[in-house]
């Protein structure tokens, strides 16, 4: 690629420009740095047709991602299914519904594969040999797997009480898993100190301006898969608020570079009731995020009490005419089961949050019944199986005997008949 599309990093607060290094905070006012592009050049360089001619992975939108050369990590990542969810639409009472299914992302079954693909491609360009992250689980899985594939050494730091399968899904890749006795926000604080001291490439600390941009590809794909248009409504789960903010930026950029027409779209947020600081701020009509010191929810991947992008997320929701809801543990489990039973999609707890909050947004008319919506499902249910397990019935056990099977079925018919 001879042309330079990615110009520099820019402070979101004061606009000061920074070189494209491993820096993430403005030295002047501590605002977050964000990638900025030469949109005019991009507009003239890409088209729907060109993108459609490229392989089915997230790098088909390469001009809008913050690397200099060709991507080296994540060449199979993204372009996950957009499922038309008619049965779920009927259950929730909305005309048209789609599920953007990142539970099927490559290689580690969550949307984090997108952000890590960008972060590690950039880490290699910047010459890092060791990459690391602070994580609630999914990010750790993806850093571990993709660092292994890229031949980088990795350290992943997680709260010590994560789901077993999320820990195992990092360990297997030979990464260094370090469990911290503390909540995610404490892990994050420690990582920011480590990043400063050891000079590693922390994907969500000093590489965050690159990492965060990967989430935009979810929006680009949704727009392309809908036939190059933004959905009227998009519901996204919120932990730090970064995904929701970047989905918004993705639709805006797609309009800016001429991939989709100017059109109204609303972005809605979903959080867990046990850790919902962004939803709380939205509902209180403020943009001051009151931290949640001790998150308590089965949706551990969303348990960030001090959301870094909370302020921007509240503004993205409000300015797009969206809404924000939260879901209790019980509603999360119901959401997981409803999605599984109506669409055959097994989502992790964050997916249950998204479904449960979408249900409320539809019931309250924030998403009108005669409009269309996309639900962002961000991780696979097998990763948080232990949260659902106690709520599922045990299999019925019989001997390998037709008579026993007949009896079991006969019993069932009788129950069914009685119910009718």
């Amino acid at each position: 690629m001879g042309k330079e599309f990615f110009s520099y990093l820019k402070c979101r607060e004061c606009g000061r420009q920074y070189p494209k290094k491993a820096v993430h905070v403005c030295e002047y006012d501590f605002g977050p740095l964000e990638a900025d592009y030469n949109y005019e050049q991009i507009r003239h360089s890409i088209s729907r047709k060109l993108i459609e001619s490229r392989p089915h992975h997230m790098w088909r939108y390469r001009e809008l991602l913050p690397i200099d050369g060709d991507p080296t990590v994540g060449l199979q990542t993204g372009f996950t299914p957009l499922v038309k969810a008619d049965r779920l639409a009927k259950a929730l009472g909305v005309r048209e519904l789609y599920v953007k299914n990142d539970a099927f992302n490559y290689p580690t079954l969550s949307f984090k594969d997108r952000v890590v693909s960008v972060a590690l491609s950039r880490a290699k360009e910047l010459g890092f040999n060791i990459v690391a992250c602070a994580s609630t689980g999914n990010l750790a899985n993806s850093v571990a797997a993709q660092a292994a594939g890229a031949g980088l050494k990795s350290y992943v730091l997680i709260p010590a009480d994560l789901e077993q399968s999320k820990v195992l899904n990092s360990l297997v890749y030979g990464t260094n898993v370090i469990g911290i006795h503390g909540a995610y926000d404490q892990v994050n604080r420690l990582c920011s100190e480590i990043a400063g001291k050891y000079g590693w490439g922390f994907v969500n600390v000093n590489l965050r301006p690159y990492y965060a941009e990967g989430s935009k590809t979810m929006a680009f794909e949704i727009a392309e898969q809908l036939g190059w248009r933004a959905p009227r409504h998009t519901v996204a789960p919120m932990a730090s608020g970064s995904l929701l903010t970047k989905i918004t930026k993705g639709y805006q950029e797609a309009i800016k570079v001429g991939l989709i027409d100017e059109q109204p779209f609303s972005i809605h947020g979903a959080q867990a009731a046990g850790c919902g600081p962004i939803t709380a701020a939205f509902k209180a009509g403020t943009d001051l995020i009151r931290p949640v010191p001790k998150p308590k929810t089965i949706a551990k991947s969303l348990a960030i009490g001090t959301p870094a992008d909370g302020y921007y997320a509240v503004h993205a929701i409000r300015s797009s005419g969206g809404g924000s809801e939260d879901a209790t543990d019980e509603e999360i489990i119901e959401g997981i089961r409803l999605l599984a039973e109506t669409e055959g999609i097994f989502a992790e707890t964050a997916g249950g949050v998204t479904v449960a909050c979408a249900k409320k947004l539809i019931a309250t008319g924030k998403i009108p019944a005669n409009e269309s919506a996309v639900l962002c499902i961000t991780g696979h249910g097998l990763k948080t199986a232990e949260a659902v397990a106690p709520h599922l019935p045990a299999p019925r056990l019989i001997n390998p005997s037709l008579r026993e099977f007949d009896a079991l079925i006969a019993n069932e018919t009788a129950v069914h008949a009685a119910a009718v």
Partner: protein
Amino acid sequence: MPIPVSIPTPLRPLTENLDTVEVEGATISQLLASLDKRYPGIGERLLDAQGNLRRFVNIYVNGEDVRFLQDKETPVKPGDEVSIVPAIAGG
């Protein structure tokens, strides 16, 4: 009586590398004014052109974010612990 204010690493070049500075004041606003008087330039790093606390600067009094107290008008007294902490991006 002066009140100790803890200074974060990125601002220490302005405070002769001191991690704690004792300044006079009965409110956060007054403490910041005294701080800027002694170390000119530090004020604009903490407050925007309208004089409001910058979005990614947190000031804590005894562990509580002043945004949830009385913001810049939060009273302080000797014995209080005041710290300036930039927000930490992550996640």
